[in-house]
């Protein structure tokens, strides 16, 4: 008899996020008048994330890949609890976060932490490092024992010398600041980390150090990751599973080896073909045509069809569903469904 699968640590069900330009009273008045006159104006809505389902099991590293406008950062923020979804549910260990009472909601929020992209903007420039790292655990009463010892332990775990707790962020390099951010996240004892392009702004050699740190922390603290990046090489190295997004929708997801060996969706194929690799010498860069469409006016049907070399009639009309084409491998393309 098989034991039932535990609920995934984080699950997104039909999650969407829409951004609408907030209309001031004058604009609202104009709209009402136009509506009354029979020429209604559609408010400008950006569907940053469009009905996404995603589940991350405990201990997994899920890589979230996509280019500008794909919605990966917005998705990350919804997972971390910083941005509420417009539709759908965010479930933490099987429970809808929106339905929790304030104390439980706060617990859930603390358990999911985020590492940000910009090491220069993600630390409060007016606070000393010790305060940056120690404020939240102190406020939430997570510290047992002396405050300084706790903060020092967090810094050491992130690879920083505790002697520098009295310093300010501007006195550190980019890589060190990123470590401070990691220490701050770890200080509240999370079990899930959302890394939003956490290494994109770092030099290559520092990037490698931080990636190693992520891998070490995963083992030591049994962490689960949602690793958001545009860098396929990094995602391939770190992740168990990869999810690829395009203009707010998931177009493909599969275990890492599967995605890189047998990409199914034309966008994934193009992405993999175009990524520069250190072993691909003096290659002929062949690029897919066209620009990434503006999220304000995404193409109808499959968002990718204007740039897809295999597009046919159905693609511009019907949104392809995310179908399972192999065990654990899902792709949203009409080519699989002929």
């Amino acid at each position: 008899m098989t034991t039932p699968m535990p609920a995934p640590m984080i699950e997104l069900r039909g999650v969407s996020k829409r951004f609408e330009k907030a209309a001031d009273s004058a604009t609202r008045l104009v709209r009402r008048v136009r509506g009354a006159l029979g020429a209604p104006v559609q408010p400008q809505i950006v569907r940053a994330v469009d009905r996404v389902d995603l589940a991350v099991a405990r201990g997994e590293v899920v890589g979230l890949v996509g280019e500008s406008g794909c919605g990966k950062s917005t998705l990350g923020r919804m997972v971390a609890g910083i941005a509420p979804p417009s539709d759908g549910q965010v479930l933490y260990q099987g429970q809808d976060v929106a339905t929790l009472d304030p104390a439980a909601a706060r617990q859930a929020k603390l358990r999911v932490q985020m590492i940000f992209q910009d090491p220069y903007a993600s630390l409060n420039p007016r606070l000393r490092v010790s305060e940056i790292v120690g404020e939240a655990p102190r406020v939430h009463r997570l510290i047992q024992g002396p405050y300084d010892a706790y903060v020092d332990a967090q810094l050491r775990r992130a690879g920083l010398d505790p002697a520098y707790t009295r310093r300010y962020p501007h006195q550190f390099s980019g890589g060190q600041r990123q470590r401070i951010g990691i220490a701050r996240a770890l200080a509240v004892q999370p079990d899930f980390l959302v890394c939003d392009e956490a290494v994109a702004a770092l030099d290559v050699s520092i990037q490698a150090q931080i990636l190693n740190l992520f891998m070490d922390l995963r083992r030591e603290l049994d962490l689960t990751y949602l690793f958001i990046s545009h860098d396929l090489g990094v995602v391939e190295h770190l992740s168990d599973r990869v999810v690829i997004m395009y203009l707010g929708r998931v177009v493909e997801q599969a275990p890492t080896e599967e995605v890189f060996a047998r990409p199914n969706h034309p966008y994934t194929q193009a992405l993999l073909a175009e990524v520069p690799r250190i072993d691909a010498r003096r290659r002929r860069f062949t690029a897919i045509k066209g620009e990434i469409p503006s999220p304000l006016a995404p193409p109808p049907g499959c968002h990718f069809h204007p740039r897809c070399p295999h597009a046919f009639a159905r693609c511009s009309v019907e949104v392809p569903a995310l179908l399972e084409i192999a065990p654990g491998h899902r792709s949203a393309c009409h080519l699989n469904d002929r």
Partner: protein
Amino acid sequence: MSATALAPREETPLRRFLAEFARSRLAVLGVVLVALVAFAAIFAPWISPQDPYDLAQLDIMDGRLPPGSVSPTGVPYLLGTDDQGRDMLSGIFYGLRISLGVGVGSALIAGIIGSALGLVAAYVGGRTESIIMRLVDLQLSFPSILVALMILAFLGKGIGNVMLALVMVEWAYYARTARGSALAERRREYIEAAECLALSRARIVFRHLLPNCLPPLIVVGTFQVARAIALEATLSFLGLGVPVTEPSLGLLIANGYQYMLSGKYWISFYPGIALLVTIVGINLVGDQLRDVLNPRLQK
């Protein structure tokens, strides 16, 4: 792996700021001028040759004496006397007290109220923000003098009422600046991190947002002090400001105005110079503050 060599000694943001500030000679001059003026104002009772409000010491026969003259009792009138026989220099020192006190006091109070409102408007948004910002717009669309005059006409003269009028006129600048600054900072990642760490809204606004919105507010505050002093001088000049018993520089200038053309220039002139020095000094400091604090915001 540990950090390699960093700044050699405790490099607080304050030390960095002071070093940056001192790079402009003019700004240092401004600080000197402000310090002199402040010193005169604070220590007026001790450094004045005469207490100009002690009626017992006055002799109206000493009125309108030119600078350099000496009273029969041996008190030097370095800058002459006014029409009541009061020593100009002492009058200026005491006048500075009033002017600076009213100016700085009103700027501070307006600053606290206006900044708090601006920050709340930016962070909370929605209808609260709309209401506050419409009030700001309303306030700023009227000329300050007009508003002050209306308030004083309604409430009557007196230092307290003058300060109230100045606060009513000034708070809107702070609110607007604070809101603008807070809107920019609100989207920054360290604020998002604070939200992710489940910190309370109040803590985020006052512990994280406010200190980082402070630089432009300090700059605004500096210029507001100068404006307040000038505005108060104007009001007093028009006779609607502080009472005659506690003359500010503006009132002193007003008193001597009638004598300007008959050769007794010193009664208006020297208080005018004192006012000029004060405002120029404050503006020089404010200019450099703005330049120094600005690049920081870009980080």
